[in-house]
């Protein structure tokens, strides 16, 4: 507490730090910290060897890989399309723009299981889209591709909605200046616009990626759930719980939480660096 306050002195100009920090910490502790610490508390009956054995079981390791691989690819694809969508929504005026804009939150509003069922139907080899791919011999539902598609679906709003407000606030003067100075459109984008939206994009990427790691409802229908092939980590947690193995379930859950924390933490640090560089 005193440390926070000492830090506060360095930038004492703007008021309200102590109050807002107090509210933030109180709510964060009640809603996130204390419940999460109970997970660790509930593991107190488990020895470290047991914990290690649970989280390094071969089936679990394969599941980590499936989860990681699919969320990473999905988050990367979302980065690309997310920035693209934010760009066209902010910069271009075209018929149907508002409608397009309105659809972005859809993945959040649909209950994940409904989204999962709909996507599975759509991409199975008898579905509207899956049929087209079945002709060229690509199976989507019940494969890793299917999992990735579901994760793209649930992750896209994160990137779009992170980048969009920053783009809207971005001063066009610099771009116009660059254009006048003779820079090409793509060069202007990558040299002037991109550095500005990069922090927001990283945020979106991190959130989409982390959400993908933990996603269950929409993935479980489209994944084939075959052990060692298309089983995701949250499914393993469920199967442990189903056997009333709370320790096993929380062990794996804790591992996943630590993973996500590390990823998000490094992204946040990276983002702060980028911010500093662009601000200089």
């Amino acid at each position, binding site marked *: 507490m005193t440390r926070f306050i000492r830090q506060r002195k360095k930038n004492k100009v703007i008021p309200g730090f102590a109050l807002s920090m107090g509210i933030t910490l109180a709510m964060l502790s009640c809603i996130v910290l204390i419940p999460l610490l109970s997970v660790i508390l509930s593991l107190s009956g488990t020895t470290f060897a047991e914990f290690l054995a649970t989280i390094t079981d071969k*089936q679990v390791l394969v599941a980590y890989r499936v989860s990681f691989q699919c969320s990473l690819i999905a988050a990367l694809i979302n980065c690309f399309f997310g920035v693209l969508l934010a760009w066209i929504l902010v910069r271009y005026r075209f018929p149907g723009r508002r409608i397009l804009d309105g659809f972005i939150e859809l993945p959040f509003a649909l209950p994940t299981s409904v989204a999962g069922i709909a996507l599975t139907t759509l991409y199975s080899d008898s579905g509207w889209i899956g049929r087209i791919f079945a002709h060229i011999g690509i199976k989507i539902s019940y494969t890793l591709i299917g999992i990735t598609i579901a994760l793209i679906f649930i992750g896209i709003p994160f990137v779009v909605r992170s980048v969009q407000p920053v783009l809207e606030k971005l001063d066009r003067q610099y771009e116009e200046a660059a254009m006048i100075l003779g820079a090409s459109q793509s060069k202007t984008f990558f040299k002037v616009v991109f550095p500005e939206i990069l922090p927001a994009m990283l945020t979106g990427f991190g959130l989409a990626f982390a959400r993908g790691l933990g996603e269950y409802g929409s993935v*479980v229908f489209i994944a084939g759930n075959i052990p060692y092939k298309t089983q995701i980590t949250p499914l393993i947690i469920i199967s442990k719980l*189903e056997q009333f193995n709370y320790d096993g379930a929380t062990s794996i859950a804790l591992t996943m939480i630590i993973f996500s924390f590390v990823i998000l933490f490094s992204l946040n640090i990276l983002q702060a660096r980028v911010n500093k560089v662009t601000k200089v």
Partner: protein
Amino acid sequence: MKKPDVKSFKTGLLLGLTLILSMLVFSGCGASQTSSTPQEGTDDAVQAKAPVEITNVSYDPTRELYVAYNEIFQAHWKKETGQDVTIVQSHGGSGSQARSVLEGNEADVVTLALAPDVSSLEAAGLIEPGWLNEFDKNSSPYTSTIVFLVRKDNPKDLNDWDDIVKPGIEIITPNPKTSGGAQWNFLAAWAFAKNLYQGDETKTQQFLADLYANVTVLDSGARGSTTTFVENKQGDVLLAWENEAYLSLKEHPGEYEIVTPSISILAQPSVAVVDEVAKSRGTEEVAKAYLSYLYSDEAQRLVGKNFYRPSNPTILKEFASTFNLTLPLVTIDDDFGGWPAAKAKFFADGAIFDQIYKQ
């Protein structure tokens, strides 16, 4: 400078806490309006004939059965005691439902898909030992079995368990590790193979390995598997509970057929009074009556109409045109030495089911 900062930091902390607490209180009040009214009279409910409310935590596709059953039980209870009873229903996966009761979901009775789910509540002290014999037929008022659902006219000619393990056949079945009900599927196949190989366990295990090698989608629950097979047209055969197979036929008439294999298993859903909750709420009597009335002729016929097999043999015969009553059924107690043994042998972590996939 320092003093006011500490003070406003504390104010902030307090404000945050107050917000969360007031939210809890606010929503708690909103909730108690709906829940406390019927419960007020539970302590001396029977004498005062005040209305009583019980909660039945059940598993997935039993809702229609219990909606219908609740009506006849309400009428019956009113006639017997003059008391009004309301029944709150809860449905979900059998295992997760059992877990929610264990974690504090206050159920007066549970009606779950398999005995171990109820036993877990016994182990947690919620249900008194001996529940299995509290009601007739191992406390299972209705049963079912495992059958094959195939596409119309059975194009791949799948008639028995050894047909579906042939290479190239695609099977859809849920994962027994995430769906308790799917453990019956596994055990039914095991019973067939054990008969076939006259008890040779290595060969039996290989048979099951072949079977699961043919499984192209291993959904997390029975309903997921049905959707995969019925809506998304995956696979050649779905291993399903008989009652669920009939529900699929009802939803898609003329598209599917039920095939009964040469041998299957008697799937016995279990019912029990949750003693700890019923005692504290004073609902023991009505909870007990609720479950025992499931064995009445009227209820048994209702059970049959909802595609479960009535456990009363006379009434079961009335449904001979629906169910294949000549199908030999093994039981968990006689052929697998009871649930604890079967669980440990087949479904625990590292047990036979895991070994099959490790190969």
